[in-house]
């Protein structure tokens, strides 16, 4: 599957998910177990994406400038910085480590 195929299929699927909520009879989807699962799935997914994006490289786990970016982002979040500052801090730290060690 080419990158373009993934982009288009992912995008159309995302739209269909939104439409489903707006268009299907509510009884189909309104069950507490289902709702709770859908609410918790992003938590597990996002946590996994954090660690895989920070330390994953194919099948290996590595330590590289991305980890510095994550650390800076974590500090910014703990200091209650706005989202934009979190991103900038992460990008700047990763860049700095990359330049210093590259």
């Amino acid at each position: 599957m080419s990158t373009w195929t993934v982009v288009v299929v992912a995008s159309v699927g995302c739209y269909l998910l939104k439409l489903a909520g707006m268009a299907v009879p509510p009884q189909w989807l309104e069950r507490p177990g289902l709702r709770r699962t859908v609410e918790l799935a992003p938590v597990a997914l996002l946590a996994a994406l954090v660690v895989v994006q920070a330390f994953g490289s194919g099948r290996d786990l590595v330590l590289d400038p991305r980890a510095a970016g994550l650390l800076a982002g974590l500090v910014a979040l703990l200091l209650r910085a706005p989202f934009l500052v979190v991103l900038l801090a992460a990008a700047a730290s990763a860049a700095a480590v990359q330049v210093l060690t590259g």
Partner: protein
Amino acid sequence: MDDERRRVIADALSLGLSVGLYGAAFGAAGAAAGLTVAQCCVLSLVAFTGASQFAVIGVLGTGGSPVAALAGGWLLGARNTLYGLQLARQLRWTGPRRLLAAHGVIDETAAITLAQPDRSRARLAFAVTFVTLYAVWNLTTLAGALAVSGLGPTARAALDGMVPAAFLALLWPRLRMGWTERWVALGGAGLALATTPFAPPGVPVLLAVLAVLAARPWRSGPAGRPGPARGEAAP
């Protein structure tokens, strides 16, 4: 126009503008992950849901399989289905307007719309937020992607450091909700790390969803909290 409607419009405009600006982060991250400017733009134009967009480029960028990218993006996108259920009741649009409105169902539009006391203001809030956010998100995606695609590979590699922090920022408001969420997050991260050496790239992220089972969501009890968390600053 009365003061109430004026206030709704002002809130909607500022929400759309402030959140829309983060499209630049997505555009930059997407280009850094190896997508073309056009691909980043299509994701913002057609998917238009931040966490899913970041997940797709994130998984593809680290060499994950297409299926993993799709599954991750859609699992994160499923919460828009929940929002749609609540918004349909409040907005009561039908036909072509519903098809169009569906495109705008995301965390931010849901939050501001569900906070309105009546249908008229709900529709106003939704429409203004949607249009503003969509315009700004897409323009900044283009700008971010263009800016990064002009950079050298070293700078782009450094921008990869922004992506895990973006995911952490998206996760943060959920971690503050309670211990169930925190344990699910730890479980998800742990499962992903543990399975990375053994599974094809991208699959560990999907296996992490199994951590949700530990929370036993099928047990009957109080239904989940309605709507997205307040104070979620990110798309």
